[in-house]
């Protein structure tokens, strides 16, 4: 997985969260992940397929972080816990971030299709990653807390 293919995800994440939630987003140092469980309290997963790339992108938020993001997006008070509206928002954010990355990668002649996002609620939920493929984690910090974007992508 070339680093240049990760940058579009990083840029799209920053763009989507900062535009929709109006809060600054600061990327932190990339790391690799060994465990196959969700990082945060709520996680959006989207499958990626193309003739030259397949795998998935995962976006996982801590509870405080996503409640702050959703409150800012919808201009309402922060909810006290994750509910169906927060699940809906994570699906939409996952779609927008991956759509933004897809748009940027298309300009680099890397085209792929996106499946519909799936949203998992709960920490340490099992995720089915591609075997023998690194899981690259891009952590992001916001004033509401941390969230991560994970790339589990295999070049064909």
């Amino acid at each position, binding site marked *: 997985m070339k680093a240049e293919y990760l940058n579009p995800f990083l840029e799209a994440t920053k763009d989507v969260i900062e535009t929709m939630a109006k809060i600054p987003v600061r990327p932190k140092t990339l790391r690799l992940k060994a465990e196959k469980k969700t990082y945060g309290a709520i996680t959006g997963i989207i499958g990626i397929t193309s003739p030259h790339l397949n795998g998935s992108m995962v976006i996982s938020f801590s509870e405080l972080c996503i409640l702050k993001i959703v409150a800012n*997006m919808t201009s309402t008070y922060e909810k006290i816990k994750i509910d169906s509206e927060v699940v809906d928002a994570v699906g*939409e954010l996952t779609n927008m971030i991956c*759509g933004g990355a897809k748009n940027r990668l298309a300009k680099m002649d890397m085209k792929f299709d996106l499946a519909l996002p799936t949203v998992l609620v709960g920490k340490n939920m099992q995720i089915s990653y591609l075997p023998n493929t690194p899981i690259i984690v891009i952590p992001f910090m916001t004033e509401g807390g941390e969230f991560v974007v994970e790339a589990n992508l295999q070049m064909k």
Partner: protein
Amino acid sequence: MVDSEKKKILIIEPSTFFEKVLESNLSTDQFIIATEKDIGRALLKVVRWHPDLVITGIEVGTISGFDLCLLLKMMPDFAGLPIILISSYDDQLIHQKAADAGADYYVIKNNEAVENIKAVLANLFFPEKQAAKSPKSKEIESILLVDDSLTMRKVIRNILLGVGIQKVIEAKNGQDGLDQLAAHQVDMVISDWAMPLMNGVEMIKNIRLNPNYQNLPIIMVSAEVQEEIEKAMHCGINGYLRKPFNALDMKQLIAKFSTPAAE
């Protein structure tokens, strides 16, 4: 047109070349143009000359165009003064900063910049002529918003109400959109693309089958790649916004289809 009837436009643009391009294109018998290169002098000019419109670049020295915008919008005498921010950057963050600063319009410096600014001027100052040119155009007061995501419906509804739309009718998929359209009179449709039961493209094709809706403006909002959205334009979309977008992006797109009713 006598001088007292002409609209006064103040241009604050660091690039002498672009300043001249704007000045030469906008200097007609309808406008009086003044130019400044320094924000401090520009502020003085605004206070003394009372322009009808300010066009400002962003990188104009130590005080940016954003700051000028914020300052003017905080001054009660000039809070209603329309401001066009112009910049080479076509970037969501800059769009957001422009919206946060209170700019009324954001125009990208490209080969369509002059035409886009002229369109803004026509809408602002000569709405009756615009209405005469396009008999179907009218003020957009009610919008049908079709999106399967409750979150996005809330986000877009807030933006629409914030930019002065009086009535927003919501639908959660294409079929629901068609049902709501049959039950309500609306001035515009804003629709998501990917939705269950019936997607946005199918819904729009259905809408366009009805002769009564041939001129109904329809905007698509989607996270799809630009190329795909442009391919879908043939189904009857009049404009589109890529997600993510902010209030200013939405306001500008709606303004393209809206002509305030002449008194």
